[in-house]
């Protein structure tokens, strides 16, 4: 830890055209990971990635510098180097209309760190071994199994040249079980994950027996998938379960409103204040609190010292705002609402989502399924990709046929594709039960970033690819 207040005198903000904005950030990412693969302890590590960085903005250019040995001297060196880097670029070319927003400075301190005593890795390894023994004895027909526990606690301290001082700690922890079973067409896998905001001891400090029904459910799904069928390719009415709908909205829509990608030509760049979705759709990037409880990845102040508030992206089908940092907020003449986030101390803040949420509607999921004569119910997402055209592909790990308004056979791995705008306009029902995803998703955009994803179930139309 560094007393960042003692470095205030090091900022050299200047004024007018020579104004220099700067920030200094100390960060410690504390990670634990334990993987038990087919009974062998494949991974058992604890890591603390910590350091100090500084970033400066001068004449339209950014400079950044970081050191892994955090100290007052390292912070001062990083600040000077960051300013020198910005001025290096500024000295070689000129930018017009380049600037950043200067919102009200923030002083803020908040820790979500667990209040329970941390547990020795030995206890977690014993838990995994006990559950692995349970699987081996009860389900000897499995080809492979993997049990993983991991946690990541991120502590950040930030001071900016315009007066913000921040100190936050946010942990998250997950437990994942994966099983692989042979089928007539080769091996089939299924995995499930639990966890969320908190540390391992907040979620999983329990007897092995308390996890056995979950293990049984995972075995049941992998067995049913082994006997599953391929979906028939084509365009269908489908129901997307909350986890899958939340990830699809994040990839296909959320990235399209990140202002840096808007500047790079996202399909939504010229759609502000226009209808881009069915009026049933209201999509919000929650800052830290939803329905009176902390969101999975609470952000109160971002890594530019900007207060984080909820950003209404789409309101009743109308695109209302992009997600901005200080620089794009000025460019688009929008209020910065705290989206600049960096994953590690050595990363510069990028525009990122926090806890994107499709707000619930009024339809029960049973009504959605009953309304489909021939379609699919897709439950568990795999990986998803979308580009700035909004074209997306999402793998589906678990799904079912819908025939005559009823759930039918289980599907093998499949995929859905489409375009963001067509997808959002095809949404015809929005479920009444909202869920936060618990898969521990981290989004990749130059840097990894833990994000929260939430949605109710949806009825929409997509292209289904069954291989």
């Amino acid at each position, binding site marked *: 830890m560094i007393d960042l207040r003692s470095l205030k005198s090091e900022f050299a903000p200047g004024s007018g055209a020579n104004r220099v904005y700067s920030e200094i950030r100390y960060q410690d990412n504390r990670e634990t990971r334990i993987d038990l693969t087919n009974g062998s302890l494949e991974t058992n590590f604890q890591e603390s990635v910590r350091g100090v960085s500084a970033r400066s903005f001068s004449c339209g250019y950014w400079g950044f510098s970081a050191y892994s040995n955090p100290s007052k001297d390292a912070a001062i060196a990083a600040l000077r180097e960051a300013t020198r880097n910005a001025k290096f670029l500024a000295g070689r070319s000129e930018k017009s209309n380049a600037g950043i927003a200067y919102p009200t400075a923030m002083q803020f301190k908040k820790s979500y760190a667990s209040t329970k005593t941390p547990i020795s890795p030995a206890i977690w390894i014993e838990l995994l071994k006990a559950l692995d023994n349970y699987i081996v004895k009860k389900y000897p027909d499995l*080809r492979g199994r993997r049990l993983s526990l991991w946690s990541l606690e991120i502590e950040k301290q930030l001071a900016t040249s315009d007066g913000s001082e921040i100190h936050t700690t946010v942990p998250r922890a997950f437990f994942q079980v994966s099983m692989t079973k042979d089928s007539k067409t080769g*091996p089939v*896998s299924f995995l499930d994950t639990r966890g969320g905001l908190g540390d391992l001891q907040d979620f999983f400090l329990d007897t092995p027996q308390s996890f056995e029904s979950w293990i049984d459910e995972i075995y049941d799904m992998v067995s049913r998938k082994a006997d599953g069928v391929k979906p028939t390719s084509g365009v269908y009415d489908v129901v997307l379960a909350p986890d899958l709908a939340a990830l699809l909205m994040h990839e296909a829509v959320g990235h399209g409103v990140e202002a840096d990608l808007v500047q790079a030509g996202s399909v939504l760049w010229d759609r502000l204040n226009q209808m881009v979705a069915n009026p049933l759709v209201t999509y919000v990037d929650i800052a830290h609190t939803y329905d009176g409880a902390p969101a999975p990845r609470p952000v109160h102040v971002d890594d530019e010292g900007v207060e984080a508030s909820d950003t209404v992206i789409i309101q009743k089908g109308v695109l209302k705002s992009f997600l901005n940092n200080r620089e794009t907020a000025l460019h688009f003449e929008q209020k910065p609402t705290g989206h600049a986030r960096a994953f590690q101390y050595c990363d510069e803040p990028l525009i990122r989502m926090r806890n994107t949420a499709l707000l619930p509607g009024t339809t029960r999921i049973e009504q959605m399924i009953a309304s489909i004569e021939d379609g699919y119910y897709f439950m568990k997402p795999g990986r998803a990709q979308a580009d700035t055209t909004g074209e997306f592909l999402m793998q589906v790990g678990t799904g079912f046929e819908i025939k005559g308004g009823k759930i039918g056979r289980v599907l*093998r791995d499949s995929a859905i594709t489409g375009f963001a705008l067509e997808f959002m306009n095809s949404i015809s029902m929005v479920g009444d039960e909202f869920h936060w995803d618990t898969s521990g998703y981290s989004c990749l955009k130059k840097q990894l970033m833990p994000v929260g994803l939430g949605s109710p179930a949806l009825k929409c139309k997509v292209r289904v*690819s069954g291989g």
Partner: protein
Amino acid sequence: MEHLSFDFVRKILSRLTALGFDQAEVLLGNEHLTEMEVDVSSFSLLRNTEADNLVLRAIQGGRYGSVVVSQLDDSRIQMGISKLQDQVMSAPVDEARAFAPQPLVAMNEMGPLEPQHYAMHNSLSQFLVAVGEAYPECVLKQALLRYHRGRRIRVNTVGHETDTTEGYYSFGVRFLSKRNGKTSQIGFNGSCAADLGTDLIEWGGIRRALESSVREINLTPLHGRFDGHVIIAPEALYILMGHWLQNLKDEKILSGVSPFRDKLDKPVCSPLLSFSIEPRGTSFARHEFLTEEGFGSEPSTIIKDGILKSYMLSDYASRKTGLPRGESSGLNWVFGAGKTRLPEMFGGIDKGLMLGRISGGVPAANGDFSGIAKNSFLIEGGYLSRPISEAVISGNIFDMFNSITAVSQDRSNDGIALIPWLGVDGMSIKGR
């Protein structure tokens, strides 16, 4: 930088051995990065980072532990050592854990050891001008020119003492092309080089990708479905081969998912495919002296005429399974050159797809996969006919590498891989 020395690392090793571990290892890494970024055709960021990374490992009675520390003051190192003791005590006995002995060469330095800021700025500036002149319809969304330097000092109690340093540059671009209100799909390309002596536009496949982007402006949706030939461009092959190779590596072999567990010296793909790893190949920008576990990296043949000749396993996975250890960590791919010229590969195809890039997830455990064909063209009557969008390509990755119809003579070198164009049959392509 005074901590980057054998002396510093040996002292930490002594502290571990004093605790009575059977074996111990200390690995001190130092990574430097200088990054120059262009956003929407304008310079935006100059970033440099310096990171130390201390890995402490120990084994006692077959129990193994590993701790990573990124701050090198004495109290943090002591905390790391205490955590290591806890880990070792709590780990189950696993006789497969061991440390690497001393390799033949103890010290190596390769590539530029310092970044050249002025040269980097000049190279990027010239690239912006070159793209503007040669491809005025092309809009650069982002360009990242990076200098990387990594140094690793490793000592352990089985006599290993090595100090290796590698420096190199990497360059990645994201772009699209526009004309008369029409827009191509986003394109990506990237490459590595040991120095800045060559114009960035000539690195790897960057010029080819920019040219293709301009040709993609008039893209139209693919309608209908057909099964048939696909010519896979090097950029797409890199992704697909990466998925296939996962089945020779630790996770899929240890978890039992790989179909190649008992396939050493047996056919695993088409006899047209040969693939090897050259960790210090002279035609590449990057060089690997030691594996991630500290063994000396050596060239290895992975596939010879479709026959599996080597796995790509760590020493740990090798001991767990009884299969041979990989000779390297897998840097620098070399696909064997084929006998067919690229135009001839198109010539025999009545209707097919030239797959420029694939956007999608990872194949399922049985190998089934789907992806959106990006930067891709329809092949008709033996020629590239038109750029297409909304095409989903699907198949089984094991079947695909068994159904190779041709490998091109031409290969693209992006600084870490020498990759041809590959013709495959039996793929399903579905349009709107």
